[in-house]
């Protein structure tokens, strides 16, 4: 009898394991459906059947308008240009910082990632001032252009430049996570075989790094495509219309049917984003990127006499991208009013006093934004690890669709996702009868939907680089899927997952466009308060809040070093 039980056990176990697999899969699919398909579907309904009656009026009007296609063309130009620049900057920096012997590596990585925390508008504004006639720096050098000269950033090139700089850390973080699984032996083999460093880079490193690189490219592309802040600041004065600004324009001139037109335009953006992912998939499916050993690569290339010039180049970049906007922000936060020259007599801490003590919402916003972005980052990554397991290793038509739809909420302008969420949650939830409208939960829902892809792409690229034999061995040994995920896979994809979580946290922390429509008293976010100040002409308060945000975030990021010892290796990008 004991014998018979022994015979039956594994088979029964296998069957139960399969049921569990399916249960997990369907649970994942349902969550994606709720987060991604539901909002898109509701929006689509508004586009083709406003008020419940089928009408192709909006569709016809949008698709026949030449403005739509001008904006689409411009969107493609800026998104592709911005992505290219971001890949050049972020990719080069990731390779140099990880694979060479530059000094102060960890500090540099920290500084390179920081700009993600500055709202795109802040960076763009700082650069506008930098190149403009009132530039404090150019004035100091006596080289300020005369009053009235046109700012060169008000142009498509300006938009591409700021987009590329803003999103370079996306490529950097995904690629760095990938590089940390690169086995040292491969590079050493190449080098001892007589290949030069550049040849090793071209024939060994880059081919193996395609999954994380492409994940970074894909993230950059949707980020640039859906970005509103930069083209709004630089494109509106330069008369350069892109899809997100066109959508905002339609919303501003709210006539009858505007919502339907907005919905149709949004679907157009979603469509472009999906094409981008299909292209990425096609590139990835042709090859095998698995890496079987995991000895951590440790700066194999010595730069020798090139080390100093490379270091100077890197720090110059950080100076332009991080230090300059930060200095501009700090200077603005210290003057009593916009345009007052800063000197010993005018300098004041009043703006900080106001933001910290007189303005109740600013403090609440800091707490809310921290809670929302940390929750979103952790929840998404924990969800992305099992989801990516199925997406990479159990491919099916359904899963391919799942992979595509996760992209859309991030590609839509935030204001549109917010409108979709309002349409969905205006009435109390069915069955439970509770309403999340006008609470912080509707913002959390949107963050989960919107930033899912930021966590998913790096994790997927992590799977692409995993050799599955370990997991299969565990499966043969009888470990169920959840257990394999926890004990085998989690430690191996942890660096990629951590990069994703960091991306989500930094992006959500000062997110504006979604919460601008969804906040209610008590659930303010940092972006909302920042926007309120700026819109009312109180740029000095906005600057003080911006500086505080950065200071708090730096403290949070540094505090991660305290628990570094307990984390799997390679999880913190700024720690070797």
């Amino acid at each position: 009898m004991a014998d018979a039980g022994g015979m039956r056990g594994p088979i029964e176990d296998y069957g139960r394991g399969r049921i569990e697999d399916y249960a997990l899969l369907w649970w994942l699919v349902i969550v994606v459906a709720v987060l991604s398909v539901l909002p898109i579907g509701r929006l689509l309904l508004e586009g083709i059947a406003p008020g419940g009656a089928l009408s192709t009026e909006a569709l016809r009007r949008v698709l026949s308008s030449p403005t739509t296609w001008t904006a689409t063309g411009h969107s493609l130009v800026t998104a592709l240009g911005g992505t290219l620049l971001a890949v050049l900057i972020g990719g080069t920096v990731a390779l140099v910082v990880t694979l060479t012997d530059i000094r102060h590596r960890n500090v540099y990585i920290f500084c390179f990632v920081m700009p993600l925390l500055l709202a795109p508008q802040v960076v763009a504004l700082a650069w506008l001032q930098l190149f403009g006639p009132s530039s404090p720096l150019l004035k100091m050098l006596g080289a300020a252009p005369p009053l009235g000269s046109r700012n060169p950033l008000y142009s498509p090139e300006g938009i591409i430049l700021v987009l590329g700089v803003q999103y370079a850390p996306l490529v950097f973080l995904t690629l760095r996570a990938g590089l940390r699984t690169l086995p040292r032996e491969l590079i050493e083999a190449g080098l001892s075989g007589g290949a030069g460093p550049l040849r090793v880079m071209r024939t060994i490193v880059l081919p193996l790094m395609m999954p994380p690189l492409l994940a970074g490219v894909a993230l950059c592309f949707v980020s640039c495509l859906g970005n509103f802040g930069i083209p709004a600041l630089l494109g509106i004065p330069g008369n350069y219309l892109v899809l997100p600004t066109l959508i905002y324009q339609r919303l501003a001139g709210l006539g009858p049917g505007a919502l339907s037109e907005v919905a149709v335009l949004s679907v157009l953006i979603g469509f472009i984003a999906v094409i981008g992912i299909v292209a990425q998939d096609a590139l990835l499916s042709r090859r095998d990127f698995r890496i079987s050993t995991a000895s951590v690569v440790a700066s194999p290339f010595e730069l020798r006499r090139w080390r100093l010039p490379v270091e100077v180049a890197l720090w110059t970049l950080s100076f332009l991208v991080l230090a300059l906007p930060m200095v501009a922000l700090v200077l603005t936060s210290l003057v009593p009013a916009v345009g007052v020259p800063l000197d010993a007599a005018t300098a004041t801490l009043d703006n900080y006093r106001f933001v910290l003590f007189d303005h109740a919402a600013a403090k609440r916003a800091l707490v809310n934004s921290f809670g929302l972005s940390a929750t979103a980052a952790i929840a998404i990554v924990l969800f992305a690890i099992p989801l990516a397991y199925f997406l990479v290793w159990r491919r099916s038509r359904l899963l391919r669709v799942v992979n595509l739809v996760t992209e859309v909420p991030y590609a839509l302008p935030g204001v549109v996702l917010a409108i979709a969420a309002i349409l969905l949650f205006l009435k109390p939830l069915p069955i439970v009868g509770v309403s999340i409208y006008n609470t912080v939960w509707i913002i959390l829902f949107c963050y989960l939907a919107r930033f899912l892809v930021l966590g998913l792409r790096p994790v997927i690229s992590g799977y692409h680089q995993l050799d599955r034999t370990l997991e299969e061995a565990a499966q043969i040994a009888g470990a169920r899927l959840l257990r394999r995920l926890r004990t085998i896979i989690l430690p191996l994809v942890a660096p990629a997952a951590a990069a994703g979580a960091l991306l989500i946290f930094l992006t959500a922390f000062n997110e504006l466009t979604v919460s601008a429509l969804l906040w209610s008293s008590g659930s303010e976010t940092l972006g909302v308060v920042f926007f309120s100040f700026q819109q009312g002409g109180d740029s000095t308060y906005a600057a003080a809040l911006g500086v505080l945000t950065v200071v708090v975030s730096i403290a949070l990021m540094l505090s991660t070093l305290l628990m570094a010892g307990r984390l799997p290796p390679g999880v913190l990008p700024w720690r070797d």
Partner: protein
Amino acid sequence: MNLVSRSSFIVAALVASVFAASPIEAQEVKGKLVLYTSQPERDASQTVAAFKRVQPGVDVEVFRSGTTEVMGKLAAEFAGGQPRADVLLLADAATMEALKKDARLLNYREAKVEGLEPSTYDADRTYFGSKLITTGIAVNTAAKLRPTSWADLAKPEYKGQIAMPSPLYSGAAAIMLGTMTSRPDLGWGFFEKLKAADAVAVRGNGAVMTAVANGEKSYGVLVDFMAFNAKAKGSPIDFIFPSEGLPAVTEPVAILRTTQNAAAARAFVDFILSDEGQKLAVSMGYIPARASVGMPSWYPAGAKINLMPTDIPKVVQSNSTNLKRFAELFGN
């Protein structure tokens, strides 16, 4: 009909339908009131605080954002069949006119409009201007030239130095466009000259203010209070009243038909139009709709500001053609 508290809604409605001819005088209103507004944040919180001093029984919930964001939220709520707002306090009459056309606004026939300029409120009493926000010329104090008229801005000396809010992204700027293009002395020719002078249209008044105060542009087409508030805080900015006159928006207040608390909503409108509410607007730096309560401190003493009359229905009607023409002219 004035006394409709939510708890006794049915009874009150019955009573009201019987005694409609003799409205009961409101003593005190209660319950929740939801306000959607595009006022600057500080103004919004001051307005609510002052209203609560008059009506302590009302619990006011505020949603404040840009006009476009407020209207976007409202449009989504309409589409979802359940608008949550009771009262609106929004930048311009054109937006209100569009809502009125969609039958979204409640008539408040008993509103106390005595002493208000008739052009500031809707003849059907669905929306009521709360103040006058004029648009003039802001000048950086370091600028060499001082324009005295709109026409001056079109001169070659000003080339490349002008910022203005884009009517494509701001309802108030769209009214300005409609008002100025319909005048024989300015018309579209004026905007064509502005374009030829490389004027840039930015996303909103806040951006114009920052550009002029920073010296990025020497001149800006800007609303009065923003220039004067910045000047009071020390920004190097002046405000000029152009000789042709100034277009103005009225930041109207209105009640939604679907309001859940009509009594409190009416009390809010009463407060905004009352001497007290109007004085509050003056203290925040606005020209009040009720001239009798005084003028803000920046107002030129003894002078009368020359306002450009705006034909709201006409502006609304020609709005989409205007915006299209503007977009073509300025390059989009």
